[in-house]
């Protein structure tokens, strides 16, 4: 079982150390607000990247509507805290579960569609969600919701990032996760081996959408304001880029991708005029020279810390 795996415990301990160190730095004021919000942004992107990676990287279902799930989580959790005075955790989970239901709905077309067709259908689905928000007066239409209480802090974001990474990593290494990977490798062969491909494809969509919803809720409670246009398909592409940059089918790759891309964006903010030009050029060059992403399908592991004989 994964829980007994040494690498897992090393990772957990290391993450808690990272958490404690950064919390200490924030408390002592060594990290300013800008650095803290960049850290939170990185973590939101990690949640988004890792959850999309489950759908795109591990299950091989080409989805580019992730911002749609994110917006559902953002809106639902914002409504919960604004209009129903729910505690933050409950609001987040409501947002996540609603997004998961949307994942179930979009999972159903995926049973009939493959590759590019699924991609364009999910893109359309994400846009439809955006247009629904745009035309719903209750959530403020085009101007969106504002005044959402700022509740996302380093502790919350860290807990959720850890939960996402642990859950998805363990899922991928479980029997179900292996079944998902077999769907990616060859759907027909997987089916012939008796794997219920329908079940696993939908499962990947539901889990991925749930965490995207959580990320949406976290970001809504971070920036006080949400509007439909911040969840357009360009946002979906951004998440896709994180996944592909890190390496499809590598959880640690998605984490690396999220860190690299967020830092790149933060860095490029100083050059607003040529920001997107540099970004797009990097994107093209990256794909031409390293189409598999930074880590490929490999996982970063802590095995090298142990003795050589124990490694593997």
């Amino acid at each position: 079982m994964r829980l007994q795996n040494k690498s897992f415990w090393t990772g957990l301990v290391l993450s808690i150390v990272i958490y404690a160190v950064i919390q200490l730095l924030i408390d002592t004021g060594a990290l300013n607000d800008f650095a803290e919000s960049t850290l939170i942004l990185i973590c939101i992107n990690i949640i988004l990247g890792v959850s999309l990676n489950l759908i795109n990287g591990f299950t091989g279902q080409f989805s580019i509507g992730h911002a749609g799930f994110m917006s559902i989580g953002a809106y639902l959790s914002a409504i919960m805290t604004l209009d129903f005075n729910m505690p933050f955790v409950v609001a987040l989970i409501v947002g996540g579960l609603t997004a998961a239901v949307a994942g179930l709905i979009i999972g159903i077309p995926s049973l009939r569609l493959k590759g590019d067709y699924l991609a364009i259908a999910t893109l359309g689905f994400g846009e439809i969600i955006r247009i629904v928000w745009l035309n719903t007066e209750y959530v403020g239409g085009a101007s969106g919701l504002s005044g959402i209480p700022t509740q996302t802090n380093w502790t919350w974001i860290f807990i959720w990032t850890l939960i996402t990474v642990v859950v998805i990593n363990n899922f991928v290494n479980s029997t179900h996760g292996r079944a998902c990977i077999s769907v990616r490798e060859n759907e027909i062969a997987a089916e012939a081996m008796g794997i219920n491909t329908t079940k696993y494809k939908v499962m990947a969509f539901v889990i991925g959408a749930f965490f995207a919803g959580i990320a949406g809720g976290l970001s809504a409670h971070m920036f006080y304001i949400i509007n439909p246009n911040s969840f357009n398909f360009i946002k979906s592409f951004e998440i896709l880029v994180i996944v592909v940059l890190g390496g499809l089918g590598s959880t640690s790759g998605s984490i690396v991708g999220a860190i690299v891309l967020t830092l790149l964006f933060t860095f490029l903010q100083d050059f607003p005029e040529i920001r997107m030009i540099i970004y797009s050029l990097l994107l093209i060059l990256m794909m031409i020279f390293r189409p598999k992403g930074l880590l490929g399908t490999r996982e970063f592991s802590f095995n090298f810390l142990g003795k050589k004989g124990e490694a593997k």
Partner: protein
Amino acid sequence: MEYYLQQLINGISVGSIYALIALGYTMVYGIIKLINFAHGDVFMVGAFMGLFASRFLSAKGLSPVWVFILALLFAMIVCAVLGVVIERTAYKPLRNSTRIAALITAIGVSFLLENGGIFVWGAQPKGFSEILPKHQFNLFGTVQIDSNQILILVVTVILMVVLQYIVHRTKIGKAMRAVSFDQDAALLMGINVNTTISATFAIGSALAGAAGVIFGMTYNSIDPLMGIIPGLKAFVAAVLGGIGIIPGALVGGLLLGVIETAVSSTGFSLWRDGVAFLILILILVFKPSGLFGKNVREKV
């Protein structure tokens, strides 16, 4: 009745722009199985080229008809070159890598054109001067149609007929069909696959350029981000008609234009884009090969 007829005419004139862009999508997708996201931005570049050419030529004092024809040709040529350059530099190195890598590259090229456009021309919309003076014609009393709408449809149909001729009657068209059917076999038969793919990009992008000029003439305002939504809609049109099928793109485009106008005219104009995507999903779920496509079973 007259109201519906009027809306039908408006819908067809919107739809013919979608159809022109969709033709390029369909050709490129048919040959290298890539959703060329940058296609909508080539359309944008075409509109700007048309604007500059028409300004330049009008200042020279040419007659409006010649200004229109020359501006259209200029935009088409620039876009054709642009399409080939994009294909050679960005897509060709990725021909044997994963589909997702190619798609991300296409998105990258699209961002590059959009933001390059903003950098060079500024983000503000630019007015597109009226090249040909508009004449209103009255049909059946109150139904109006203006000369621009007729022109758009005529240009679309002419270009589509030319395209159909190229694909079915010429040597390069035969090569295109061969490459789209089986790239490796085509290579073995002595077809220059690279040249053929470049030619496809050139023709598809030229059509997008033409659509850009026509778009500018219809809406009188163009900006560097204008390609995004028409680009997506044209892809919907291509899927609607059956991707890879040339008459399908025309019918899909016209149909989408008419449906959109119908949605707008019944007072749901804010839902217009949503309806387009809903149609896309429904078509994909119930008839993934499009209205004109045949279902091909995947072989194990």
